[in-house]
Structure formats: C-alpha cells, structure tokens
C-alpha cells in the first residue's frame, strides 16, 4: 500500500443528481490564514502573557532586573518539562496525577543510587530516568491495556510512588551531588540570563512539538482524544499509544526529578508536593481541552509561563502565595468559562455535551 491519488480510473460515474462530470476540487481551508492563526485559544494566551509581561516590566519594581528571567526559568523548569508529555496525555483524554510523585521517587532514587550505591552521577541519573519510565509504563499499562480509568489509576500511583519515595528515604535527605553537574543545569548560557538547563527543555519542546503536530503518531493522539473507537478502527494502536505517552510522562518526570536533585542539591521524599496540579492547571490554561482532542504545545508553554510570570510579579509586589493562588485559580476558571460565555453569546452553544468530569 502506498500513498496514492485516485488518478487511474474514475471510481464513480456521475451521480444522477448533477455535477459537471469532473471530480470536485476543494479549498484547503474555509477561513483565511490570519483567522486560522490568530483567532485561537493559544494566541489569546500568548497575548495575555505578553500583556502581563509588559505590565509587570512597567509597574513591578525589580521585575525588569536580570535575575527575573533566570529565576523564572529555574523555577518553572520541572513544570515546563512535565507539561510537554502531560499535554499529549490530556489530548488523548487521559490524565496523569502521578507525575509529581514520580519526580520525588526518581529524585529519591538518584540520591540512593549516587550516595549509597556509589554509582557515578550520570549513571544514577540515567537509572532514575529509566525508573521514571517504568513508573509511567505501569500507569500506561493499566490505562492502555487493562483499560482502567486514568484518573483512578493515577490517584493510586500518586500515593504509591510518593509512598515509595518517602519510605525509601525516611528521615534522610541526600545531598552532596556533584557541583559540575548542578552547574551544567543552573549556570547561565553565556552572558544571557537563561539557565543552561533551558537548552534541554528547548530540545524536548521541539521534539514533542514535532511528535504532536507533525507526525502520524501525533495525529493518532488527537484521534484517540476525539474518538478512540474510530482511531482503533483506522489502525491506531490505542493501547500502545497510551502506554508510550505515559512512559514519556514518567521518563520526563524522571528527568525533572534529576533536575530537582541537582538544582537543590537534595533528594527528599517530599519534593515537588502538589506539582501535579500546577502542571495540569498550566496545561489547561494553555488551551488544552480536558475532554481531549484539542490543544497545542505553544499554548501550553505560554500557559506555564503565564502562571510563572504572575507568581513572580506578585512575589515581587510582596503578595503572599495565597493571593497568587487565588489569581491562578480564577485564571484557570476564566480560561474555560470565558470561551463558553463567548460562544453562548454568539448564539451557538457548542453541541458537544460529553462527560463533565
């Protein structure tokens, strides 16, 4: 079977009703390019991000300082990283609540392998990433092959992985990880204020963007989210796709765990507590539909940055975490309610009334 165009013989004769005898041709798009590119959720989020950035630069003291961007990326790195696979998972209509626990678990393993087992750091780190992948594979197996709901499965592994991390280390906190590795992550790129770890993220972001938006696999991801039965009938291996995605989430969480270990020179069982919800909030804010089937990575990255920039600006303004949390929450709700209101106002409530969870 090869990609083909139906040029050989006409397959249908003229239907009784009409037509001029030649096959129809179609415009590729119903709307002009600027509309397709600009009138999207993603553009709205990016615009909002720009507005907030400009506002903060003008109004928030010290926001324009050189440290802001540096710290912003250092803080956001794990969320940025995990948001990549999380986007794909949510687009298939699933969810992974266990990522933060996987971060803690892999960080704990990095510590144990490096400090107690005497592995060299790169080996310990690679092993931790592999363990992350195994954690993800376990989720993916239960969701994809056993067919269990991911919400329930990952609530379970959320507790399980965190429990193993805490159990493994107990009161201990491992420290003393090699500085040269930590520096590779946190040192600035040249004279800029971007940490070097950002390169890893950028590479992964490109890889994930190609995977999601420019590959057959990515098309399958969207199809599964929109209609997994139809996807299966067209030869998409739904179970394997889910397994792969959860594995990716696990491996990237493992990477984030190693990052955590290096950035804080610390491996503890309680690292990254509650981060799963931050990641999910950022992904949803970035325009990914919780029903699956819709979303784009550039929106998600903008969503993560938006939350980070707001938090950073508000800290500089001397606001407490509480107010930041309130703003984040309101933003999240607004991001789903406002499109609803708009489409309602424009008189065409979307016909989609799928599950509410």
């Amino acid at each position, binding site marked *: 079977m090869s990609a083909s165009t139906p040029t050989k013989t006409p397959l249908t004769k003229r239907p009784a009703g009409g037509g001029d005898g030649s096959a129809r041709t179609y415009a590729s798009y119903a709307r002009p390019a600027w509309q397709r590119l600009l009138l999207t959720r993603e553009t709205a989020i990016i615009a909002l991000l720009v507005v907030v950035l400009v506002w903060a630069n003008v109004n928030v003291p010290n*926001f324009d300082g050189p440290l802001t961007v540096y*710290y912003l990326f250092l803080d956001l790195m794990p969320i940025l990283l995990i948001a990549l696979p999380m986007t794909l998972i949510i687009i298939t209509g699933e969810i992974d609540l266990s990522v933060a626990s996987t971060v803690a678990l892999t960080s704990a393993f990095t510590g144990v392998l490096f400090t107690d087992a005497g592995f060299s750091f790169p080996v310990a780190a690679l092993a931790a990433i592999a363990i992350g992948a195994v954690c993800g594979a376990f989720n993916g197996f239960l969701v994809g092959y056993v067919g269990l709901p991911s919400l329930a499965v990952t609530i379970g592994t959320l507790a399980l992985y965190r429990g193993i991390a*805490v159990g493994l280390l107990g*009161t201990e*906190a491992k420290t003393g990880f090699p500085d040269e590795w930590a520096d590779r992550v946190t040192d600035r790129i040249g004279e800029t204020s971007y940490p070097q770890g950002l390169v890893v993220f950028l590479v992964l972001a490109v890889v994930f963007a190609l995977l999601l938006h420019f590959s057959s696999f990515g098309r399958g991801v969207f199809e599964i989210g929109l209609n997994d039965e139809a996807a299966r009938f067209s030869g998409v291996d739904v179970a394997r796709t889910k397994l792969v995605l959860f594995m990716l989430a696990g491996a990237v969480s493992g990477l984030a765990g190693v990052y955590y270990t290096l950035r804080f020179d610390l491996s503890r069982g*309680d690292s990254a507590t*509650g981060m799963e919800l931050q990641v999910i909030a950022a992904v949803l804010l970035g325009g990914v539909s919780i029903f699956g089937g819709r979303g784009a990575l550039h929106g998600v990255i903008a969503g993560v940055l938006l939350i980070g920039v707001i938090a950073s600006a508000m*800290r500089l303004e001397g606001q407490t*975490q509480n107010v930041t949390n309130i703003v984040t929450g309101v933003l999240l709700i607004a991001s789903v309610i406002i499109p609803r209101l708009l489409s309602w106002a424009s008189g065409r409530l979307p016909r989609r009334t799928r599950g509410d969870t």
Partner: protein
Amino acid sequence: GGDDGGSGGGGGDDATITFLPKNLGNPYFDASSTGGQNAVDAFGGSFEEVGPTEATPDAQVPFINTAAQQGVGALVISANDPTALGDALEEARDAGVKVVTFDSDVDAEYRDVFINQASAEGIAKAQVDLVAEQIGGEGEVAILSAAANATNQNAWIDLMEEELAASYPDIELVETVYGDDDDQTSFDKTAALLQTHPNLKGIISPTTVGIAAAARYLSTSDFKGQVALTGLGTPDQMRPFIEDGTVTAFALWNPEELGYLAAYAAHALIDGDITGEEGDTFEAGDLGEYTVGENGEVILGEPTVFNADNIDDFSF
C-alpha cells in the same frame, strides 16, 4: 537614611528586612515575626514577611530568589533544609543581601549569622530531663516530631538519644513518628503511638504543632495523666492543657525574642557593625548586647520551662 534615632547609626536604616519563616500560618513563626517587626519598628526601616504555605525547601527557594531580585537589605530565614537552599542563598548574597538564619540553620557557608534559640544540647537535655522527671526515670518513651526531614528536630532527636543513653539507661525510646507539623497528622499519630505501645510512659514532642495536637488527643483519652507529655510548645497553645493537668511542664524559648534578636543581627550586618566573624558584638535593643560565637552562631539563651506556676506570666 540615617535620620532615625532608634539605632546605632550607619547607612542601612531604611533597608528592607525580609522574614522568611518555614511556612506561614504557624503560630511559632507568627510570634517570631512579631518580634522582628518590633525590632524593625525600633531601629527604623521596613519589615516584610513572606513565605510558602507548605514547609518545604523547594517552596522557600522562590522567595529567596525574589529577595535577591528586590535587593533587600537582609533576609532572615528559618530554613526547611540545611543544604537545599544553599545555591539560592549564595545568589542572594552575591546580590548584596545579608542572610541571617534563625530557629533552623543552613550550612554555615551559606549565611552570615545564625541566631540559635539555645544550644542544641541545651534544648535536647531540657526535654529529656523534663520527661525523665515526669515518668520517674524509667519506662518507654516515644517522640512525635515534625517533618521527617526537619533539620533542627532531627538534630535534637539525635542529641536526645545520646542524652537518654548517657543519663537515663532505664528509659527506652521505642519509636519516633512524624506529624509533619500538621495538626491532624500529629493528632492521629499520637493516637497510633498510644495504641501501638500500651506501656508507653511519656511522649516528647519537640515541635509546637506536635505538642499541642498530642495534648489535645491526650486530654480526651484514657491515657490522660498516665502518659506524660512534654516538649517544645507555646504557652498560649498549651495553657488549657496545663490547666486540665494533661501536661505538667514543657519548654520553649521566647520566639518573639528570637525574631527580635534576628532582626537586630540583620540590622547590624547591613550597617556593617558585624560581619559574622566570631567575637563580633552588637547591640540588640531591649535584649542588650550579644556576641557572635563559633561558626557565626548567636545564642539567645537557655529555654524557659513553663508549668502551672509560671505559664500565666507569658503570652505568645
């Protein structure tokens, strides 16, 4: 600046002093921040309190970063981890921020001065002595701590174990459990302790949240009066339990004074009166003069023991 007569002079009078406790909403740190605020009011400048909602090091780091960005005069911090905050603190110091730790220290290289509430040995010994006295020098005891990784609690627990082994061979430490400085967890862990160890004679809780929760459980339990409870607590929280006899005595330094002293140390650092070298001395308002000791430590004093006789004299 320099036009405020309240301090010993110098250029840092209007500098900001930012307090970063382990977490917000913890009465112990509320008291220390009050002390800090009072001190700053006294010597002039501006006081800020920021902090995470959860007592973890990763949550504290962004606040340290922000202090560096703002270029505050000094950061006064109770650390959730001795090493994890190191890089962030270093960056802050590179940006010209003086770093004072209080209550819970980081490794000495990362800060200028540590304001110690009391020597760790003193704190450990005070609690061990209290429990030994209350249970008659023999029997099983257990410890209800804060988070499993809490630096100062873990240091004290180690010292308490040594002290028990050395001075009270008849007292057996049967278990250490962790209430995560959360009321509900501490409460439930107390219940579990009492059930798991029916012969338990005493509980030491070297954390204000833990001792209050444990007292609350004990006061409603059959074990009230049979199992002794002591540790570190604030008088305000413990008053009802001293009154109803659940607890006979517990210890604590005055956290308000701790914050007050830390703010003055910060002020002295900003002004350049001290650098954190051993032997530096500075004036701490109502508390008088203090000298920086070994490793840049300043010790507030010995803990106060509170009991039915004196508890009403204190309010914090």
